[in-house]
């Protein structure tokens, strides 16, 4: 208790002068230098064509990623560096829209039209890095097992042991109870999903390059993952699964003249992956937004004087530490929940004598 009090005091002492400096700086500069919180947050959580690394006084250091667009009107494919579109510049007829922040071109009527855009954006690069990192980790662990392929060999220690612990934990706690007797077939897929999500979640919390991008808080990513589960459920679902959807075990009037129950069941097919998609997206995005907002509190309160700024900085940092801890937990929980629900949905798609047993 006493210790934490000292830490608080120290923080206050350290932070008040810096707040003063900031306040001075802000009062010296123009009023228009105000922090646009919304812009700061949205520029982080949204995708972008370049990866901003850091800024010094007047210079920004970014990685400019390739823009790859296709439009019939503009003469097919074109690919160029996003450096050419910096600060609203136009290149090959393309520019970055002020309103949407996407690459657009202006057609004959003067309206902005989006081309088919498959630029290698920040999220694309980040997910590539995450995926490759995951691949390296798993294959390195796999190599250990290849070298120690006798069952009488020692149990792995260190990182491989930790990884094995997590793998068996996911397998025994989530996949086996969720999927049921046929879990072996789906285990690699579900493990891959779990580790990809948790890797992306955790790397999203690290604020410096090459981590820090909002990958799992991007709806395209969660949509892809949900689609994978959708395919795993519906393509490999057995006969009884389809029977339960098309001709469920309910009174005939609920399904015969008007296919009420089949309709509901059919929507169930779609809502399950949709829920998966939105849950992961919303949770991860919200976490990023909260942490960024708390960071912005420091800069927003800078013009309000040293006392307010100093105390708010302390509060903001305390809350940020708390939120980061929370996000660590959420990173795990969301990966856990996604995998668990996926395995439950897969398990539901392969019922065994469920109907016969009931009757």
């Amino acid at each position: 208790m006493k210790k934490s009090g000292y830490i608080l005091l120290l923080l206050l002492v350290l932070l008040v002068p810096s707040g003063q400096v900031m306040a001075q700086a802000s009062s010296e500069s123009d009023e228009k230098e105000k922090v646009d919180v919304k812009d700061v947050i949205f520029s982080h959580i949204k995708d972008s064509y370049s990866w901003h690394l850091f800024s010094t006084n007047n210079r920004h250091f970014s990685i400019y990623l390739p823009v790859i667009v296709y439009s019939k009107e503009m003469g097919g494919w074109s690919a160029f560096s996003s450096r050419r579109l910096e600060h609203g510049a136009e290149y090959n007829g393309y520019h970055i829209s002020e309103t949407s922040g996407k690459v657009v071109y202006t057609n004959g009527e003067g309206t902005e039209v989006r081309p088919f855009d498959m630029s290698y954006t920040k999220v694309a690069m980040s997910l590539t890095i995450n995926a490759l990192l995951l691949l390296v980790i798993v294959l390195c662990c796999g190599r250990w097992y290849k070298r120690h392929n006798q069952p009488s060999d020692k149990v792995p220690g260190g990182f491989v042991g930790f990884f094995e612990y997590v793998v068996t934990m996911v397998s025994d706690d989530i996949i086996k109870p969720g999927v049921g007797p046929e879990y072996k077939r789906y285990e690699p897929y579900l493990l891959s999903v779990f580790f990809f999500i948790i890797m992306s979640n955790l790397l999203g919390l690290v604020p410096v390059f090459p981590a820090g991008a909002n990958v799992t808080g991007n709806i395209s990513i969660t949509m892809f993952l949900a689609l994978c589960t959708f395919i795993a459920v519906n393509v490999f679902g057995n006969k009884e699964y389809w029977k339960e959807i098309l001709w469920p075990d309910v009174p005939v009037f609920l399904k015969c003249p008007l296919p009420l129950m089949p309709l509901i069941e059919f929507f169930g097919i779609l809502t399950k992956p949709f829920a998966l998609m939105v849950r992961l997206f919303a949770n991860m995005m919200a976490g990023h937004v909260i942490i960024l907002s708390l960071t912005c509190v420091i800069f927003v309160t800078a013009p309000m004087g040293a006392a307010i700024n100093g105390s708010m900085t302390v509060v903001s940092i305390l809350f940020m530490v708390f939120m980061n801890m929370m996000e660590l937990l959420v990173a795990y929980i969301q990966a856990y929940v996604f995998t668990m629900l996926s395995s439950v949905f897969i398990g539901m798609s392969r019922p065994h004598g469920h109907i016969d047993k009931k009757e």
Partner: protein
Amino acid sequence: MDLLLPEVGTLIWMLIAVGIVFFILIKWGFPMITKSVDQRKEYIDASLEKAEQANSRLEGIRQECSELLDQARKERADILQDAAKLRQEILQNAQQESKEQGEKIIAQAKAQIEQEREEAIRSIRAEIATLSVAVAQKLVEKDLDDTSEQKDLTNKLIDQIVR
């Protein structure tokens, strides 16, 4: 609002990057690990079972051992008992024999003593006879008139002889 709209470009990159990585992971990555873990699990199960068997066998051996030990103890007790009995018997026999022997020896000794006594008596008698003859001779030689004197003389003579 466009935050909620999926991007086709991102989906395509996701499909390429994550698709390839997932394919490798599903085909080789995770099965390698889970297979090893399963194998080890089976090995551990088998080892446990073996240990259980060995234990039960050991238990059987231990029981056998204790049975054997019990038997040996019993046998030892029997043998000891037999030996004690035998000893008793031998002792008894020996006692009997020694008793008989002793009796025999005593009897012999007694007989010998008797014989010797008889012999002694006989010799004494002979001696007495010779002595009496000698006394008589002397008495005869002397004047025999007084019977009391005779008697005294006889006694005196006997005393002399005996001494």
